[in-house]
């Protein structure tokens, strides 16, 4: 089914919690292509209303609520936002048989629909089990792992950056740009605090970045030598642009943040602007960003003075847009 869908106009790849998609697509009409490990899927969204969820891993297909639950079982998913024209969107809905079935879910993904998913199969209690199988039942499908378990890289290696995505004139609720292939889902047992909260656990309030924020971060990411940018706070990573595993980076960023918090009361030098740790492989920079923090991973060759100026501008003019 995925191959039949219109390509759309790619706005960019990014990594973010699934909730981000639902809070940032109010004016978006198109497809959110989701990649989780070897599987891929999509969400068709029309101005903030998700209409179709779908995920396929090998021969296993998850549709409707099951697909949504699977997406939500990951703290961060990798996805590509592709804008559709009205014609493309209509075509996509046709391909998904949307007109013939009432298959959408409520706009609020946390609301559970009264009826079963319009697609075949029962809704799973947990996101991992398959909902439907395309092959005969005799062949046991491989289980979709809820999370991958890669070892945290000691230093996220700088990677070649994907070519810049074309500037998007519209889609104001979306990131203007992000970039190439992102790291494999990196949640491991070593970082349980970064897991997506399961049911019954207290969920930290959602953090929503505004369009100007996304633009600024996207602009920064495009600078030569920027490997990754994360927006984080004490509770979670809010956004990651870059091909790195977030947990090791976040752990380092929080350690640095802790250092600044320890020294801040001792120094009467004004407000904290940034901390940069330089090691042979590159630089890690943390800086306040509104009520959150930026963590920037760069190559060694980057112009620190340039980054300094940008960070200063960001803090002096929180509404500033043209910084770079």
């Amino acid at each position, binding site marked *: 089914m995925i191959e039949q869908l219109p390509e759309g106009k790619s706005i960019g790849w990014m990594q973010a919690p699934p909730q981000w998609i639902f809070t940032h697509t109010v004016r978006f009409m198109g497809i959110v292509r989701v990649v989780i490990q070897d599987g891929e899927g999509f969400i068709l969204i029309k101005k903030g209303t998700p209409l179709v969820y779908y995920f396929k891993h090998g021969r296993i297909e998850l549709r409707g609520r099951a697909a949504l639950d699977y997406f939500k079982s990951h703290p961060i998913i990798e996805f590509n936002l592709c804008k559709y024209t009205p014609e493309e969107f209509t075509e996509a809905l046709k391909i998904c048989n949307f007109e013939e079935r009432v298959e959408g879910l409520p706009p609020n993904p946390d609301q559970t629909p009264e009826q079963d998913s319009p697609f075949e199969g029962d809704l799973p209690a947990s996101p991992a089990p398959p909902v439907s199988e395309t092959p005969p039942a005799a062949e046991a499908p491989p289980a979709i792992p809820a999370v991958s378990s890669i070892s945290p890289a*000691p*230093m996220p290696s700088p990677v070649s950056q994907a070519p810049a995505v074309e500037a998007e004139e519209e889609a104001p609720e979306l990131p203007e740009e992000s970039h190439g292939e992102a790291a494999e889902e990196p949640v491991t047992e070593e970082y349980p605090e970064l897991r997506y909260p399961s049911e019954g656990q207290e969920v930290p309030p959602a953090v929503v970045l505004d369009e100007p924020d996304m633009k600024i971060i996207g602009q920064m990411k495009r600078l030569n030598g920027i490997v990754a940018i994360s927006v984080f706070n004490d509770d979670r990573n809010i956004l990651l642009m870059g091909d790195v595993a977030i947990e090791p980076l976040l752990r380092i960023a929080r350690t640095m943040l802790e*250092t600044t918090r320890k020294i801040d009361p*001792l120094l009467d*030098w004004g407000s904290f602007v940034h901390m*940069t740790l330089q090691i*042979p492989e590159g630089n890690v920079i943390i800086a306040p960003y509104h009520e959150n923090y930026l963590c920037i991973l760069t190559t060694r060759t980057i112009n*620190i003075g340039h980054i300094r100026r940008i960070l200063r501008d960001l803090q002096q003019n929180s509404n500033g847009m043209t910084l770079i």
Partner: protein
Amino acid sequence: MLKETLNKFLILNGVQAAVVIQENGEIIESMKSAITINKDVQAALSIIMLDSKVTAGQFGNASLSTVFIEFTDYMVILGPLIEEFFLVVIAKSTANIGQITYEMKKNQDAIVAQL
């Protein structure tokens, strides 16, 4: 001799102090201009040195090259010299960070030799 080397930093625009300091905050030598390095500043520098070494170790035991911490009024640049000794430069936020780090690298061997 060490004072002379440290004095080279003070002629750089915006530099307020150049200090050779131990990780525990003990100052070995310093050259200052219109800034006071009191116990609190020493304690803060000690925290930065110790914490940064630990943080750098999280990158697969990478060696620490330089640490910059900037505030709106001042910034501090720390570079490891040898063992537990660091060269610390405190400068106004208007200073040229590239120029300072260049001088730090250029004079590193000389400072180590004078310790």
